[in-house]
């Protein structure tokens, strides 16, 4: 009986270890902290299903260091008729790019590109949250501009915070979410 339990545990432990994807790889580039999301997220069955829906899948990345908050987001939509992936990356300072990628391999290559997440290097550890949402956050742009024009929140960091708020205000049930504690590499 004990042996059976031990065998079961041995089987379960690796399974549990694989349940959560490995943490994003973080690095310092030109003074900013970048994160590269693990490919397991893109290959998660629920995420794959949503990616195949023909509607946008939003990946909202929020970094927390104590009370400080920064955010970036990725958006992916498969165009059913053109059979291309329309991808969009919006980094912490709202800089980003829009691309059309023609294959799953190209999508994975784009996914492996680092996302600039925080303007400066954090002290030691930070927490990274990834929430995968159905539908696009792009249509909330008007709200962002409206907020920025409302005064008092138009600073560089607030843009990132607004993005985080917009992302989390998308009124759709998240598909999946992850949270990692990440060690920041030495400068």
């Amino acid at each position, binding site marked *: 009986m004990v042996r059976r339990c031990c065998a079961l545990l041995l089987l379960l432990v690796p399974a549990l270890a694989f349940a959560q994807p490995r943490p994003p790889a973080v690095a310092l580039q030109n003074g900013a902290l970048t994160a590269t999301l693990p490919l397991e997220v893109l290959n998660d069955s*629920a995420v794959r299903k949503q990616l195949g*829906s023909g509607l946008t899948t939003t990946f909202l990345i929020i970094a927390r260091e104590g009370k400080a908050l920064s955010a970036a987001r990725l958006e992916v*939509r498969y165009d*059913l008729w053109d059979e291309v992936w329309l991808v969009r990356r919006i980094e912490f300072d709202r800089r980003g790019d829009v691309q059309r990628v023609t294959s799953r391999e190209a999508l994975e290559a784009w996914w492996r590109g680092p996302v600039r997440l925080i303007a400066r290097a954090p002290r030691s550890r930070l927490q990274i949250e990834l929430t995968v949402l159905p539908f696009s956050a792009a249509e909330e742009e008007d709200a962002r501009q409206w907020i920025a024009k409302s005064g008092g*929140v138009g600073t560089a960091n607030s843009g990132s915070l607004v993005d985080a708020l917009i992302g989390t*205000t998308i009124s759709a049930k998240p598909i999946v979410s992850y*949270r990692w504690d990440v060690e920041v590499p030495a400068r």
Partner: protein
Amino acid sequence: MKRFATLIFVMLIAAAALAQDAASPRFSIERIEVRNAKRVSTDVILSESGLRAGAQYSESELRDASLRLSRLPFLLSVEFSLEKGSARGLHVLVITVSETKPFFYQLDIRPVFQTKPLLDSQADTFTGENDLSLGFRWFVGRRGAIHAGLQNRRDHREYTESSGALVVGYTQYDLFGTRAFAAFNLKRPFVPDDASISPQFVAGIPLSLNQTLTLDYDETRVVGSTINFVDGPEFQRNSTQRLLALTWSYNTTNQPVLPTKGVIISAGPVLSWADRNFLSFPSQNIVRLHEHTFGVDARAARYFELSDRDSVSGVVETSLARVIRDPSTPDLHSYNWRFGAVQAGYSHSLWSHEERAGGGDSRIEVLLRATTRAVDGYPYYSNYDIPNTAQISASWVRRSSWGTIRLGGGYAW
């Protein structure tokens, strides 16, 4: 902190005023297919989505439609996806639903302990939310549903009488090709006296995709047994209450029972007429009292998701009413009634995303609530109740395809 609070406040306002983005993609929907609907009528789902084949929709419009469907009490979860249509650029919108069971229940047991005044002394009491509803719902035809069950309807209005009832009714959806609906119920209230069967009529007219105007007419007739007093009059207690409420509501929440995101605002006038007779003591005169009331109810709630599992909420509600009594006597005279409440809530899901994927949930809720009530010109009121109350309660809530159970308790002071 102040800046963050300002930002949140601005965000809340902006969320309500979101405009459509012209730059976002629009999808030409050639056909809409509802999948996995076993009992629920697909026509009802299509009607409630507010979408129609042959139109173009942006993602935000599809997302709003998904939310509208998620708020329906007979759907547990909804997923949207696109498939290729018959010609280039055309799409088939696939709505995959997960239904609730035809048998449903809602159990809410949250006793709240409170020490209240009782004339010149104090009494320990248990009040709070204790509601039970259970029944069956059958979809008939393309746009109709018959329901039967037990309903324990309570409201906070002190000028109306609420009681449980056995209810049988029919709802017609998609009236006149719009999202309008009408429900007609026959109910038999559970009261100590004999009750007669009373009608209830509810009609909802959509003003926009998230705004609805609801008309509710509810009548309760109670005919009591006859009492013969020795050397006194023959007395039969009876009462009739008719309630007419017109409510405008704006709803962007993500769920009907356990919302974690969105706004719900409702407001509207309430008219009530009540006739009741009773025996006054010691004179043993039969008094026939007629009350008519004009009131206004308003409520606003905002739910905000802090993380995958945590959400907070804020609720503000108020009611005002003028109760006119005929005949007006020194003991039973006309009065103004005022009610206000502020509530803050925190909710934490005990389940992961994967466990909640099917639409069920298990949450812990903590609520802080402050209420104030005032009755002008009613001197005995404060002898029996506390006008200003603060309350803290905690409960466990479980939602499944069968219904919702909320168990908890609280303390009020």
